[in-house]
């Protein structure tokens, strides 16, 4: 059975240090305003009681990638393991993939004048290494999971600010923080 690789982001563990974001940006030598992974703060009311929570998101390597359908040159391919790969050599910089992706993942590289997105470091995975964001997270808050083998029961496929997953069926899942205890003082 083919793999279905996806990110599993543990929001309970994430402290918003941006190490994943910066290590990826540094590793791939991205232009100043570009990020393949972004860390954002979530609304406090995420789990009922107020919590301070952060979420790290990148390409969701969707089951039905809108970028792949929109691209006029066929620069996107979905590998057998589920990773959606963008071939920059094919790209003509029409930016339609960025418009079509509900998560706005593909970004325009103003220097190369081509689109750019997370590749789940497939070349590292192919030689048995972890993606750079997974490796550099000090809290081990990001994992790569084969969702055909394991479906973590405590995860969800959507968090606030995340687009409706029924559009492209993203593979990214999230583990929500546990609600904190509220202490009442009389």
């Amino acid at each position, binding site marked *: 059975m083919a793999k279905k690789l996806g990110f599993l982001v543990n929001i309970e563990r994430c402290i918003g240090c941006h190490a994943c974001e910066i290590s990826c940006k540094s590793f791939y030598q991205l232009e100043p305003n570009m990020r393949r992974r972004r860390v954002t703060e979530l609304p406090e009311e995420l789990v009922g009681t107020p919590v301070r929570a952060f979420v790290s998101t990148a390409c969701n390597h969707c089951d039905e990638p*809108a970028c*792949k*359908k*929109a*691209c*006029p*040159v*066929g620069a996107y391919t979905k590998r057998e393991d589920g990773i959606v790969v963008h071939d920059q050599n*094919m*790209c*003509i*910089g*029409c*930016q*339609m993939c960025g*418009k*079509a*992706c*509900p*998560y*706005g993942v593909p970004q*325009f590289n103003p220097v*190369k*004048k*081509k689109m750019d997105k997370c590749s789940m470091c497939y070349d590292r995975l192919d030689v048995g290494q972890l993606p750079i964001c997974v490796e550099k997270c000090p809290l081990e808050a990001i994992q790569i999971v084969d969702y055909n083998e394991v479906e973590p029961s405590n995860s969800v496929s959507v968090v606030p600010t995340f*687009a*409706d997953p029924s*559009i492209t069926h993203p593979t990214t899942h999230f583990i929500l923080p546990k609600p904190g205890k509220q202490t009442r003082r009389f």
Partner: protein
Amino acid sequence: MHDLPLVIFTILSQLVIGGFVTLWWLDRKKCPISRQSGLMISISLVVLGAISVLISLLHLGHPFEAYRAILNIGVSWLSREVTFYGMFVGLSVLYTWFWLKDEAGKRSLIGGIASAIGVIAIFSSAKIYMIPAIPAWNSVTTLFSFFLTSLILGPLFVGAFLAIRGELSANISGISITALIAAAIVMVVYFSSLQGGLPQAVEAARLTTHQLLFWIRLFTFVIAFAILTFTFKNQYKQNNIIYSLVFVILFVSEFLARFQFYETAIHL
């Protein structure tokens, strides 16, 4: 503005296809159009078509690699638009050739094929934008508005041209008024659906109506409608000045509407 080339491309391509279908239809219906006028209109449509293609390349990061845009025709509507519009422009060159040679039979056949391909090109063009990621675009009103732009500008372009040449024998006002009424209905449906849609759609409606451009678009639309309606019954008033004036007013109106279509689109 990054999308300006696309604003110009979509408006010009829809004008060209609408004009082409009108010319082909009038010619097919044996409306008297001299060879010289037919040739001039046909050449001007080919030139406008070629200009629209060149302008569309400006929004690409790598315009000289644009030829690759037909590779994903199996799934990508953008690929289909490029392919069908390219075929349309190519066939319109052939159509012009048959005006030059004055071969009515071949002209009618090629014109019919090109018209059908032009319609498919507009359909493909609209489908590019009907994507869930941008709620303000993801509606059948996008499809209707693209076709209506073609129906509003195309016949008026040919009508004004023939009126200037003194060869206008068909009443263009009727189709233009009908198209404007349909466009007004689509506009109402569009804003109603935005108001009742996702927060991004509501925001798009708010942004659109809060710009001066929207009111200029509405004003020009109403003025053009009024001129066409008042001159509808009187054939003497359907002259070159009226058609040219209404065409220019509506071109500005449609351009502003399309500009806002791109400018106020909010991503999910």
